[in-house]
């Protein structure tokens, strides 16, 4: 990268960013975030409907499937402010589901489901399993052919917004090879979904037992595109989480700065102490870098550097939010230790983000192969 790099940033991105910043700030003050933690559903249906009406669920879906026909670069400008305000909605789950279907679905599945997702029908992804494995291409769950049906078995976890979803995309092994299958809400037996205790209390995630679920073979996603689809899903997941964590890290920094500028000890504002000031500057620098990686990855998503850029964006955002949240707790002293201090919200969000689609060391290992072994 010794040549000049540019970050492309479209007019649409600029407009959406501005709208989303205002929207997330207005709709998701910290009081609301706290209240929704106690709420079973975990989000405000009216606000969700507003997002649907704004067309945000269809931003990166092609017009032929009821979308707006922009790209994930525009989705990033929505996801970052939502992360900044810890906004709890099914935006992440539905966007990911749509992208999974777009990349791996058959034409009929796309025709049927993408317009619905674009207009607010809930979808969810069931990729993770109790093994804790990040490699999406190595599930333990199995589908067995039974005439024109597929019998599913095994269990899935961390299914974000799984309970309300009308459609789920499930990864499993079919005849020894990874495959994706679409499961409709009505095909899930009662009691198969279990709400999990998520480290990030602003999220609603579920475990899903596949045992006893049978679906028509037509619900298999296009087997020829499974590999490509899994790759795309991983990339989208990293990009969305990078945006979310970049946003949240900025809020964590604001939270630290606010305290450092008001709290006094030994008759001095604690922000005047370099022991606190300097690490806070390092938090800022980590965030600035993470945002640069994020917007580069957003613009470069489909380009030759896309895979690398997205992984770097996730690593950078992950690092920034973990660091910001960790220091936010410490710098709030005794109060930082309490549930009432918002620092924990940020730290928990970072831990959750780290648990999805690979942590930083995982991605660095893959980046090393791309950077040092290619040729």
């Amino acid at each position: 990268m010794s040549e000049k790099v540019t970050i492309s940033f479209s007019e649409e991105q600029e407009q959406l960013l501005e709208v989303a910043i205002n929207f997330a700030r207005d709709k998701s003050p910290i009081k609301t975030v706290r209240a929704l933690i106690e709420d079973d559903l975990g989000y405000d249906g009216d606000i969700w409907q507003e997002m649907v009406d704004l067309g945000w669920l269809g931003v990166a879906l092609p017009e032929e499937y009821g979308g707006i026909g922009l790209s994930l670069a525009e989705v990033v400008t929505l996801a970052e402010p939502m992360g900044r305000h810890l906004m709890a909605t099914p935006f992440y789950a539905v966007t990911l589901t749509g992208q999974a279907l777009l990349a791996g679905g058959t034409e009929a599945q796309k025709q049927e489901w993408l317009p619905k997702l674009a207009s607010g029908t809930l979808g969810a992804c069931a990729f993770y399993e109790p093994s804790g494995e990040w490699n999406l291409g190595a599930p333990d769950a199995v589908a067995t052919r039974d005439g024109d049906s597929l019998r599913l078995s095994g269990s899935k976890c961390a299914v974000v917004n799984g309970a309300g979803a009308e459609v789920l995309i499930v990864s499993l092994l079919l005849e020894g090879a990874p495959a994706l299958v679409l499961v409709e809400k009505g095909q899930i037996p009662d009691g198969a979904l279990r709400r999990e205790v998520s480290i990030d209390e602003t999220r609603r995630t579920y475990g899903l037992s596949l045992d006893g679920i049978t679906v028509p073979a037509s619900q298999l996603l296009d087997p020829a595109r499974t590999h490509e689809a899994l790759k795309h899903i991983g990339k989208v997941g990293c990009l969305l989480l990078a945006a979310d964590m970049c946003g949240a890290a900025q809020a964590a920094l604001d939270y630290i700065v606010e305290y450092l500028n008001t709290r006094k000890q030994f008759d001095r504002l604690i922000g005047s102490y370099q022991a606190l000031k300097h690490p806070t500057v390092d938090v800022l620098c980590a965030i600035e870098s993470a945002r640069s990686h994020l917007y580069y990855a957003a613009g470069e998503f489909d380009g030759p550097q896309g895979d690398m850029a997205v992984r770097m964006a996730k690593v950078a955002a992950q690092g920034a939010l973990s660091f910001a949240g960790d220091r936010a707790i410490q710098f709030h002293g005794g109060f930082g230790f309490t549930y009432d201090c918002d620092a924990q919200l940020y730290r928990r969000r970072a831990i959750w983000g780290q648990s999805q689609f690979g942590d930083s060391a995982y991605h660095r290992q893959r980046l090393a192969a791309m950077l040092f072994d290619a040729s």
Partner: protein
Amino acid sequence: MAPTEKELEAFRGEVKAWFEENRPPEPDFLLPQSFMEVGTDEQFYFLRDWQNKVYEAGYLGMAWPEAYGGRGMDQAWQNVVTREMVRQQVPFMVNTIGLNWAGPLILMMGSEEQKKRYIPNILSAEEIWCQGFSEPDHGSDLGNAQLKAERDGDEFVLNGSKIWTSLGRHAKHMILLARSNPEANSKYEGLSFFLAPMDVPGIDVVPIKKMTGEYGFNQTFFTDARIPASTLIGGEGNGWKVAMATLMFERGASGGQAGGHAQMQRESSHLIDLARRSKRGGKPAIEDPLVRDQLVKFVMRERSVRLNSARSAHKALTQDRPHAISISGKYLITELTREMNEYALSLQGTNGAFYVGDPGAVDKGLWHRAYFNAFSATIGGGTSQIQQNIIGERVLGLPKS
């Protein structure tokens, strides 16, 4: 008018060819890694002639006004040249202080006469510049500088000393921060800024040996040295403001530099190359998982710096803290450079024990020098710790320490 990408690409080809053809043959003496290590006359003349050649070819000061020896072109052209110089690792532009901070400063606030007098010779390297900011007792606390400048008619009489005067032995002029009014209301208001000649009686330049064993820094002593009042810039008593503007150029927080690279910048690609050549457990170190992990971290930090500047182009993406990127650049780059050079020593295994002059020294000891010399950038121009204060206070609005 801004050039198109296509025009720049064509230009890059031309520049690439010129540097390939014209780069000076490697001399039989050790070349300095930056303007801060120029210790011998042969090093100096070699580098001065090289800068002059680059300027004569039209590749320096391309965006500076034609009236003062520049070419009045868009900055993008110059950037192409500078990047190519770094890419080809040709020797750096020795009149660093002139090109990068005295020059832009004079262009910004100098009189027409000063611009005409100084700028062309900065570009051609006919007149070298040095900097008189730090004093033996006042480094980070620059505002407390004590070197006396007493007015005597049309002259100022200088007494005191400045330190870390890179290029002091070769310089024709010094950008000098001095105390013209010890009775001023605040320490800052008592300062004035001069474009001081170095060839007047009463100025002695004494070399300082550095931890690398090289020379290049000096202490400069002023004993009743008389300089013309016409060398004042920014007006008497405004020295602090001028010094701050200078530091913004020095730290790269303000643009307007003449171009050309100022040091033999070591990049992650060099480190990766070193890891390929080094051994761990019978295999190239580049295959060691821990080495790979660390190298990726460096690559990412290096990219961050470039991507930060790419993001700066979009106002909507810097609206919360518009100055964060420009103000933090110096801190990030210099610390990264120091750490990368430090890591290179670890990669060398037992050969890390050998220094310049030993046949066993890896790359002739270049990494050891680079690591030690990297401190000149994490300390000079405001230490990293001072930078953290500045960023904390100016960008985050934290209270003063």
